[in-house]
């Protein structure tokens, strides 16, 4: 196949250049097409559709009816439980997001100090909880509400408490416990990203740094390691933040739905309640739309902040 005569970029207008490139590289479009058709169907359309439906009432039987901002007005003015849900979701995300991020970062750093064989063993130990499905339900046995629960039994033996605590029913403890379990399962993909990030830092930089007066491991982390693994830090942040909004299932499995006095009622639960049980799809879409903007907003904010670090 003879190659066509090379066209130089400056010969023609930008528009014609683009057209030419499109024609020349049509295979590229054919190759991305299958993926993006599915992506469009199951991600783009649902997001757009839920924004549109959020301005309607829709019960899946009749055609949606346009109601303007009514759903949003109802959410913020008439729905006290939703306000609780927003508060809980924010609180939950603000605690678990940064905590899990820092846990990932620091434990990846500590693990990186170990020798390779031990390193991969310890990596498995830390990563395992996040991939083993619903093993977190074992916390229900550990924190069982009667004296047969390990935690209650030992606390009573040590005279810390006089009678068993109803861990997953007592409003004082539920939130803390759920955060604990969520953090236990949160050393997931972003943890692996960090583990890998520490391994790709150019080792010569450390020696050069030592010459330049880097005195201890903290300075080394701050001045050498973190700046050179900034791409991993960015991805890790996005993964941690997004998953900090996704612990609804864990909460339902541990505490049940609805939770006592709505102490751990999150937007995810509110969404499931209206969408999956009451079939008020318009209202549920409004909730989903708000959740969408909260997640993307939080991510954009944090990545913008991270981009400034070290510049």
């Amino acid at each position: 196949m003879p190659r066509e005569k090379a066209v130089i970029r400056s010969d023609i207008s930008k528009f014609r250049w683009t057209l030419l490139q499109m024609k020349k590289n049509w295979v590229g479009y054919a190759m991305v097409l299958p993926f993006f058709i599915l992506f469009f169907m199951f991600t783009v359309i649902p997001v757009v559709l839920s924004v549109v439906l959020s301005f309607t009432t829709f019960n899946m039987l009749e055609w949606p009816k346009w109601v303007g901002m009514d759903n949003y007005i109802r959410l913020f003015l008439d729905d006290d439980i939703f306000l609780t849900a927003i508060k809980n979701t924010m609180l939950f995300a603000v605690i678990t997001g940064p905590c899990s991020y820092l846990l990932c970062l620091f434990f990846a750093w500590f693990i990186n100090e170990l020798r390779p064989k031990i390193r991969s063993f310890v990596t498995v130990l830390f990563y395992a909880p996040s991939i083993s499905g619903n093993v977190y339900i074992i916390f229900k046995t550990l924190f069982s509400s009667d004296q047969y629960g390990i935690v209650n039994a030992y606390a009573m033996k040590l005279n810390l408490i006089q009678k068993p605590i109803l861990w997953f029913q007592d409003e004082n403890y539920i939130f803390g416990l759920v955060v604990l379990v969520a953090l236990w399962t949160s050393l997931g993909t972003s943890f692996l990203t960090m583990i890998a990030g520490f391994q790709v830092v150019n080792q010569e930089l450390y020696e050069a740094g030592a010459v330049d007066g880097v005195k201890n491991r903290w300075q080394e982390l701050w001045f050498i390691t973190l700046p050179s693994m900034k791409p991993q830090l960015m991805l890790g942040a996005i993964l941690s933040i997004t998953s900090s909004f996704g612990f609804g299932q864990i909460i339902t499995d541990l505490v049940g739905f609805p939770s006592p006095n709505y102490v751990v009622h999150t937007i995810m639960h509110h969404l499931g309640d209206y969408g999956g049980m009451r079939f008020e799809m318009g209202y549920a879409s409004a909730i989903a739309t708000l959740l969408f903007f909260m997640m993307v907003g939080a991510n954009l904010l944090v990545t913008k902040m991270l981009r400034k670090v070290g510049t």
Partner: protein
Amino acid sequence: MVADLKQKYIAYRNKRIIQKGPSSFKRSINRSKGGDAAIFILLGIVAVIMVMPMVYAIVQALKPLDELWVFPPRFYVVNPTLKNFSDLFRLMGNSWVPFSRYIFNTVFISIAGTAGNVLLSSYAAYAISKIHFPGRKFLFSVIVYSLMFNATVTGITNFLLMTYLGWVDTYLAVIVPACCTTFGLYLMKQFMETSVNDSVLESARIEGASENRIFWTIAMPMVKPAWVTLIIFAFKDLWNTGQNMYIYSEQLKTFNYAISQIVTSGIARSGVGAAAMVVTMIVPITVFIISQSNVIQTMSTSGMKD
């Protein structure tokens, strides 16, 4: 001054390397003994916290009935038995739908979904990273934005869509969406960009090979760690598919769903429930242990350069 320091440093380094070998030097740079000890202890404590619940699940699974209800409860087992596991398998045998059906469903869904996922994401990743068509940067930034929210957001409208397509209560409702995980495409694209050499592709193009052929014979063999990782991640997600809002029929439900029914179905079976947990967690953990080096290698290129 600096040159002088450097001279001294290199002399020190060489002396040290001659005395103790090169690896000893690398480890001791900027590392105090006290700090090492502190990190060791901290790692040890947290590792125990991470492992303890899982060990407890295993211990519970090995306890005979009388030990499960002994007071005060023990964290260890005195007479380990496999009875809970054999009970679990007996229970499986008695389930409403033959248990082999659940296993078949999981295996079928996992294989079909994983294959589709790896194929579609690799094609798209190859095109985005190696074929210079206009619009590829835009497509990739859409993918990056899509990492910023999760499936909860799209759940409701996806359900409407499935209803409209008539896919509710079919395998398609689980398999097809699993074929386009954006994180898979993201990882694959990042890995291809750094580890597939452009000049090799270019010379193959000059030879007249089609892009499809280049993809299969040159690019894919070069990115083995990435597709191993994609397989692991897709498999892990599909394996952990429990209750799915699109599936009602018992015949179409997964192994994991059946297991979780056993886990949550009452106190009398608490040992069996623990055995079920052990069975579910052992598969993904084993798969990860086998493929760890590939996964880490893939993740090392995964960073987000803007």
